[in-house]
């Protein structure tokens, strides 16, 4: 009886020692060198793993930073100080910070766009609505307003306003492109913040037809083309398209005569203003060129 206990003890201890030796040897032999800076850099990064830098995850981004394949400013989530700290720590150039934000290319909310039907029941998401003959709006390109993008946003940079349209908070937006993928109508684009002139419409229909479906549709009247510097805007498929290669030539002047306010100039706080929400009730909006403030014309046309 005692013998058996001793035998068992010896076997277990022997096995334990054997595996201990194997582990100790393999730790030495198979050790993978890892840059000690990797953990530190990863800690300095925001660790949101959003993928906006184009690399899968923050650790992978940190690896690329150490290998000098990318620059710290590639991380759009970190604050400028954070990027500076990483650059300092690694002794590299922080690189050109090119802040981009998501922009919605539709301005047809509840007040502007014409609805043909009610989407009831179902799954209650934009994706779900889009598979049912492209959603209830008359315009086939327009925002469906059920907020798939707001749900997808990890940074609370998107919210649905009272007009049933998503709004982007540029300060919080990290250009991670989650909303771009979430939108079934592909209405989000990532743009550098300097690009202030945008056409908030994607309808390819002809002028009157487009306007009959949505009061802020681009009617391709080409007034903006005439008002802007040459080459900045052109009309393609019944839609004004801005050539951002000439972004430095773009001015708010191009938006002044737009009959539907489809083309807008986003300036500072102005992008939160939605003066066109009132257009249906008040007849029209004109912009004072010099100060940028809106003057509302009250009489109906």
């Amino acid at each position, binding site marked *: 009886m005692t013998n058996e206990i001793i035998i068992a003890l010896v076997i277990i201890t022997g096995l334990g020692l054997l595996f201990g030796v194997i582990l100790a040897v393999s730790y030495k032999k198979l050790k993978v060198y890892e840059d000690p800076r990797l953990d530190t850099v990863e800690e300095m990064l925001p660790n949101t793993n959003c993928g906006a830098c184009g690399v899968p995850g923050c650790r992978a981004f940190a690896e690329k930073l150490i290998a000098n394949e990318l620059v710290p400013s590639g991380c759009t989530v970190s604050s400028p100080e954070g990027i500076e700290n990483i650059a300092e720590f690694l002794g590299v150039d922080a690189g050109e910070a090119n802040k981009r934000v998501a922009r919605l290319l539709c301005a047809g909310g509840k007040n502007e766009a014409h609805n*043909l039907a009610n989407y009831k029941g179902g*799954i209650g998401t934009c994706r779900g609505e889009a598979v*049912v003959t*492209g959603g209830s709006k008359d315009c086939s390109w327009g925002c469906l307003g059920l907020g798939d993008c707001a749900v997808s946003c990890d940074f609370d940079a998107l919210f649905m306003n009272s007009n049933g349209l998503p709004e982007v908070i540029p300060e919080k937006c990290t250009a991670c492109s989650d909303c771009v993928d979430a939108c079934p109508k592909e209405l989000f684009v990532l743009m550098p913040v300097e690009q202030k002139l945008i056409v908030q419409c994607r309808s390819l229909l*002809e002028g009157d037809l487009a306007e009959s479906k949505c009061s802020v549709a681009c009617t391709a009247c080409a007034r903006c083309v005439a008002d802007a510097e040459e080459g900045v805007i052109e009309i393609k498929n019944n839609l004004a398209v801005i050539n951002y290669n000439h972004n430095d030539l773009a001015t708010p002047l191009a938006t002044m005569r737009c009959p539907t306010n489809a083309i807008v100039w986003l300036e500072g706080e102005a992008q939160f203003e939605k003066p066109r929400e009132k257009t249906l009730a008040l007849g029209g909006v004109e912009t004072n060129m010099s100060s940028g403030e809106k003057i509302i014309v009250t009489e109906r046309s």
Partner: protein
Amino acid sequence: MLDKKLTFKHGVHPREFKSLSDHCSIERMPFVEEYTLPLSQHIGAPSKAIVVKGQQVKRGQKIADAGGFISVALHSPVDGTVSDIDIFPHPNGKVLPAIKIKCDPFSPQIRESSPIDFEQMDTKSFISSIQDAGIVGLGGAAFPAHVKFKIPEDKKCRYIMLNGCECEPFLTADHRVMVEHAKEVIDGIGILNRFVGAEKAYIGIEANKPDAIEILAEEAKKSDFPVEVVPLKVKYPQGAEKMMITAILGKEVPSGKLPLDLGVLVSNVGTIACLSDYYRKGKPLTERVVTVTGTAIKRPGNVLVPIGTPMRDVIELCGGITQDAVRILLGGPMMGVVQKSIDTPVVKGTSGILVLTNNEVKDLDQYSCIRCSRCVDACPIFLNPSMMGLLAKKGLWDEMMDYNVMDCFECASCSFVCPSNIPLVQSFRVAKGMLREKWAREKEMEENA
């Protein structure tokens, strides 16, 4: 006659509502002012327009060529002028390129056509002539017929199987085609068989169409090719091709495989009747039978509609809609697509226009899944809709792949039986779309890399 009707396992029994229109013989739609012919009425690449604005076209004249192998030609339904080639609303909700033809009001609308000699054709020219005739599957999916009829060299077609089940409630278009065009259906089988060389043909018909079974069985006796009319049990989705094969042959088409892997070629009865029309009378696919029905239609019926006719005119022909109409569907109530507008044209895949009232359309509250497994018992292909529904709610599309979501053919039996009114099939449709989109993105990235 078999005592026990053949069928598949699982499935559901929705109320039929077929008596609204199953006695109405097919009436011809009068010509209307203008026709809109979308260039993509079928699955696959859009057709390519070969006419220009202002050009005169004849009834049955080809106005667009096939845009690839999985694509078909398009023909003018009337004598008239091409008034516009632009983007117009399509029944699928998008705004897509289409040809608008203004009907010539003084034309006698006589089709000048002659039979096509198929006896001398080899298989290759037969396939391309079907593509040229613009024939697609008329069951609803509008898959180009010639692609289906082209038997790959490593496979053999043993049985031709005609689908006359029409298991969707309300729809009676195929029923009327079988009753009124039985000759063409049987003749079409003969033409097709010259080129595919099958042993036998089956026509699967649900037992709720005794007149169609009788007439076709009578007609089949005259044919020199063995054609068997098989009455099937009335059950939804009996008309899904995989379900019909299971019912008739007792074999299951494996996941991800095609019926042809079992040596079976399945086609809708209307499509086969089209073949006969084309080769015997030289008539390409320019019109199809559409069931206009529903409790909100004043005078339900089966109408032979030229492709491209605005839906509004078709509904008006049937007496218009009643005041309490709340929902318009293209196709049947189970798989049909809800429409937001009736200003879209009838296309090749339109099997029915269904308008329902508040009595049928109920806005029910959704509750949580109580795991009663009724959906599991209903799913004809033995999936687990309950679990997939939970995953879809969380957006776990990849995990849904483990439950074979791509095999789902969206028959909606699961949503039909769910006591909690969970939109199961709707979420699977979204999931399938998301997965396809994701794969396309990954493929693009691979190609770029």
